[in-house]
């Protein structure tokens, strides 16, 4: 697994020098945190406690979307980027195993997605405290915390799996981006449920979505591992 670590650090070093990736991983989360805090101050301004809570809940949705959006840029560039630079073949000529390559590419996106999401969440809570004075703790319920801490790694994994599959077929980053965007759909489910039922997200829903995601991830990862084999990469990829 030494090679896995070597590959991970290479991915991150490269990502940090790519404006598109830095935008997706750093600026977009900051932007969403900014919007959230702004909405909460608007809610406070209305002076109605339920309005504040609605605003707070809506903001929390971002932290289910972010883990699906953040890895898109990293995953697209880490696959399509290798293709465009024709670095895949020299990489495959090394003793790295197919699984190490796959894991390296997957974790290079999943880890920052989860970490940045949680950091953004922390930043959001801190900023809310500073701007509004207090975090409405009654709104920060167990289902929310379970979603943000339990579902987000699964959401990120799903998004990365889809993006890796799409990217193996795409020859340019933009196309890969567009096709991969539907990977954010699972992150939208709580939002849809929330706005249609007008209820707070409950724990059963979180568990159910978690179970569905585990199955989806297993399927996607199974497919992706099959696609990430030397023979496939060199002879079938576009």
């Amino acid at each position: 697994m030494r090679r896995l670590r070597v590959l991970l650090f290479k991915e991150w070093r490269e990502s940090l020098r790519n404006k598109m990736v830095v935008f997706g991983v750093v600026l977009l989360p900051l932007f969403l945190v900014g919007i959230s805090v702004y909405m909460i101050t608007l809610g406070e301004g209305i002076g109605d406690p339920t309005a504040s809570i609605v605003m707070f809940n809506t903001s929390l949705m971002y932290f289910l979307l972010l883990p699906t959006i953040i890895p898109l840029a990293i995953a697209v560039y880490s696959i399509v980027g290798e293709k465009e630079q024709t670095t895949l073949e020299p990489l495959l000529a090394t003793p790295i195993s197919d699984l190490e390559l796959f894991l390296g590419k997957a974790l290079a996106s999943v880890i920052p997605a989860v970490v940045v999401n949680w950091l953004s969440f922390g930043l959001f809570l801190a900023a809310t405290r500073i701007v509004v004075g207090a975090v409405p703790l009654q709104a920060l319920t167990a289902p929310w915390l379970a979603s943000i801490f339990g579902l987000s790694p699964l959401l990120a994994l799903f998004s990365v799996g889809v993006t890796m599959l799409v990217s193996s077929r795409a020859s340019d980053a933009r196309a890969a981006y567009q096709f991969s965007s539907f990977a954010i759909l699972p992150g939208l489910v709580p939002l849809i449920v929330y706005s249609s039922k007008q209820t707070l997200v409950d724990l059963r829903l979180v568990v159910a979505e978690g179970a569905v995601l585990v199955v989806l991830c297993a399927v996607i990862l199974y497919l992706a591992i099959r696609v990430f084999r030397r023979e496939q990469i060199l002879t079938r990829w576009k």
Partner: protein
Amino acid sequence: MIQAQGLTRRFGTRLAVDGLDLDVPRGEVFGFLGPNGAGKTTTIRMLAALIAPTSGSAIVAGHRLGEANREIRRRVGVLTETPGLYRRLSARDNLLFFARLYPVREPERQVERYLRLFELWDRRDEPAGSLSKGMRQKLAIARALLHEPEILFLDEPTAGLDPEAAKTVRDLIEALRSKDRTIFLCTHNLDEADRLCDRIGLFRTRMLAVGAPAALKKEMYGRRTVVHLASPSPGIEQALDLPFVTKVERLDDRLIVSLADPDAENPALVRRLVELGAEVRFVNELRVSLEDLYLDLMEGRDAKA
């Protein structure tokens, strides 16, 4: 170092490499010469354990293909057709990344050694994308050497380089020659193969001829006699029935006659042609360069027959 028997690769119905037999000893620079689409890259990919042969077998660096692929990858270095460098990473970081994927004992030291050797040390911190084509190619060759491979596969190392850069790379390859390092050089450049290689294999899907450049040339030099006829004399090439003549071709009013020993056999050849009613204008020797041989083979004509 490389032994292959009947190595074959198909892509669907397309046959890319057909029954390749190879025996390349340690320390040899072997030129694998063939036009675009001949199957050179496919051959390298098979021998470097990147893709599996459809059939056939090979032992590369002492290990059997398909049984010890990772071990083979550890022992061979590949310069791929395109340099394939991470443009955003510095020259040094590109090499360090690869050095760390191999069992290289002191990656930093080894990377520095090769950067200095290839005169890239001063540019080590520049992104690989900003280097000239020639430098990128040198960097890619350095990358293929970092783990001191027993076999170095070079896939068209000078293709797409300007003449000056191509010369630098060629000199570099010349300097890499060593008794412990086998070099398998793919090229479609005949001159390059002639200059750098101990032996050349002419290849187009199939191996057409193998030999030292000089032997390949000698096989052809002076072995054909051109007979210029004063009148076309149709059918005379079929009528020519001498035992030492291996082949007769007609080109307008010329007969190109293949024979083993022109010095001894030309008089008998001319006598027989005259008997057959030919009006011989004059006779000369066909000078065949390696290039003619190559073109002959590549056009599918069997020059040996």
